[in-house]
């Protein structure tokens, strides 16, 4: 399939069809050569994100979520000084406001990093340099892209810390990361990411390392800041609760590929892919009997070196047998099931609706 045809498959929101989406990923491949073979972390992924919206990317560990986000940030490209080690092999297109980042020079993309697109990492303790104060790291991020003197930058850092809800920011600015609690560190990390008012904010499992009460605060903070800055957010998580809380659109990934894409409403109320059903079924719920078992997905995620042919999910799929062996041979492409909702599955629409209505929905 040609790239342009793939682009047509990226379904946009009604009414915005003619506009260039803010972020558009087309047929992205990220492969890592290793001694054991080629690891196909991302294998033909396409999606789009409009300005001011939040896209949740969900999937199990190793489904390629983080690799995708690092590809957008240009962090797989080895710096010139390290050219000797084989880095990632990337192909496809990543458009940010119409510019293909993969075609630009690493130096150009570096200029966008931190300024136009910023990232919040999963574990704020290891993601912050233990040798420098929190303030110094925020100031550093700000001054890379803004030629201001140290005093102005420091004031900006204190402002930011105050805005992300750190008490007594003018004192805490001189604290080291290890002197902060987990939640405070993540707030400081967010302050650092927001230092240059980025248009695109990528949050890679921002709440995974935090306890539940702090999780809610951080999610609220991200939502508030997004509204304030009108930035687009890519939220990477394996926690469907977080997605339900924040995301406008949801992309479900499996083995480096998109399985299902749609609005949060569509995904949660009319999920179309057996893998999405599995994800939804594995969420524990209060309003169920404790004796009822969760609908766990059987088996384990495939090795990304030997991805099963056809649909990568077919060895774990309870419904793969219902479409005459096509799952084992033909790779399913994303096809629309309703406006703005696409799914990569060989099941026919009628069959899928039947399974959903009679076998899945009653159990959820």
């Amino acid at each position: 399939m040609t790239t342009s045809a793939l682009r047509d498959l990226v379904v946009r929101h009604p009414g915005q069809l003619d506009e260039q989406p803010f972020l558009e990923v087309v047929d992205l491949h990220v492969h890592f050569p290793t001694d054991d073979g080629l690891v196909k972390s991302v294998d033909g992924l396409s999606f789009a994100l409009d300005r001011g919206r939040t896209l949740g990317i969900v999937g199990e560990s190793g489904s390629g979520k983080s690799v995708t986000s690092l590809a957008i940030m240009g962090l797989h490209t080895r710096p010139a000084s390290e050219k000797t080690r084989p880095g990632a092999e990337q192909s496809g297109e990543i458009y940010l406001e119409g510019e293909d980042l993969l075609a630009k020079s690493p130096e150009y993309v570096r200029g966008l990093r931190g300024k136009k697109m910023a990232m919040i990492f999963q574990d704020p303790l290891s993601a912050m340099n233990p040798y420098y104060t929190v303030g110094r790291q925020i100031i550093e991020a700000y001054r890379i892209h803004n030629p201001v003197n140290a005093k102005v930058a420091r004031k900006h850092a204190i402002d930011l810390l105050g805005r992300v809800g750190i008490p007594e920011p003018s004192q805490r600015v001189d604290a080291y990361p290890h002197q902060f609690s987990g939640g405070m560190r993540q707030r400081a990390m967010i302050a650092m990411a927001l230092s240059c008012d980025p248009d695109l904010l990528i949050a890679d499992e921002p709440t995974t390392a935090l306890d539940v009460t702090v999780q809610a605060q951080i999610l609220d903070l991200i939502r508030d800041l997004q509204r304030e800055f009108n930035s687009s957010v890519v939220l990477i998580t394996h926690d469907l609760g977080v997605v339900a809380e924040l995301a406008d659109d949801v992309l479900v990934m499996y083995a480096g590929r998109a399985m299902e894409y749609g609005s949060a409403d569509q995904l949660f109320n009319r999920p179309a892919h057996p893998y999405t059903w599995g994800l939804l079924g594995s969420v524990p719920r209060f309003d169920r009997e404790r004796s009822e078992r969760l609908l766990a997905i059987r088996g384990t995620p495939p090795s990304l070196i030997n991805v099963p042919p056809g649909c990568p999910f077919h060895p774990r799929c309870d419904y793969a047998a219902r479409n005459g062996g096509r799952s084992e041979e033909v790779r399913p492409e994303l096809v629309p099931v309703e406006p703005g909702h696409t799914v990569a599955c060989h099941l026919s629409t009628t069959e899928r609706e039947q399974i959903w209505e009679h076998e899945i929905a009653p159990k959820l």
Partner: protein
Amino acid sequence: MFAYIVRRLLWAVLLLIVLSMVTFGIFYLIPRLGGATPETLATRYVGRAATAETVHLTAERLGFLDPVPVQYWHWIKGVFVGADYDYGSGVEHCPAPCLGYSFITRQPVWPDLLDRAPVTISLVIGASIIWLVTGVTIGVISALRRGTLFDRSAMGIALAGVSLPIFFTGLIALTFFSYRLGITSPGGHYVPFSENPAQWAYSLLLPWITLAFLFSAQYARLTRAGMLETMTEDYIRTARAKGLSERKVVVKHALRGALTPVLTIFGLDVGLLLGGAVLTEKTFSLNGLGKYALDGILNNDLPKILGVTLVAGFFVIMANLFVDLLYGVIDPRVRLE
């Protein structure tokens, strides 16, 4: 912080006293436990044809006739308040800190040590600066260009540097640079810094390079390993995600973490060497503490050995204290609140 340093210094004094006891025990007590009489000990310090009477007299003058604890008491008292010694040519007063008289040359040890220390200190300071700069630089470049020709050859040379002893590399360097090319001093002509800095550097250049070669090899390997580790840290990715240039990522973020273990070992190495770089000093005929110790050992000159051991112990203890304090400066996580 101040209290901490004072406490550490008091511990240092105690440690040095224990060190002197152990050393004293090894050289004065163990031979006696092994059955040696004061006279058999004294025969080492008299001529071959000496009469029994001379031997006895020498044993008496060297203090061997007293019980060993009393001998130690005389010696340690001398360190704090000074002592009087009589080697047959009248009583001589040795002011504190008195580390005794050489059994062979009849010279007091302490002024000798003061005389020799500048040579060793000059040697170690010069060499340590060279090996720190070259070792760290090569280590960083090797880590960033892992697997390239530069990395492989640098690590190959480093392996040779670590394995080859000073008396081998030193002699080759002497042959080549001093005798064949004539561009460096052949050694043995130490000129004090205060007299002529240029001559000082010229006289020490070859020993510096030889000693630095051995150590920079170790430091290159250490820095390379440290860099390879810190370059995979999450905070390096964060620094890149900020849009920081690669040079700044390496220097400000990666090197900082990689240098912590390097500086620890650096402090200890320098402390250890200040007590005498024996092989280097011997190879290049430098009259430093190491050569002094070697002379003491070869001649069974117990006061010399004892003196150098104490000075070396002092440097090692101070280096340890310095490294501990430095740790608080480089790593905020271990800073004393």
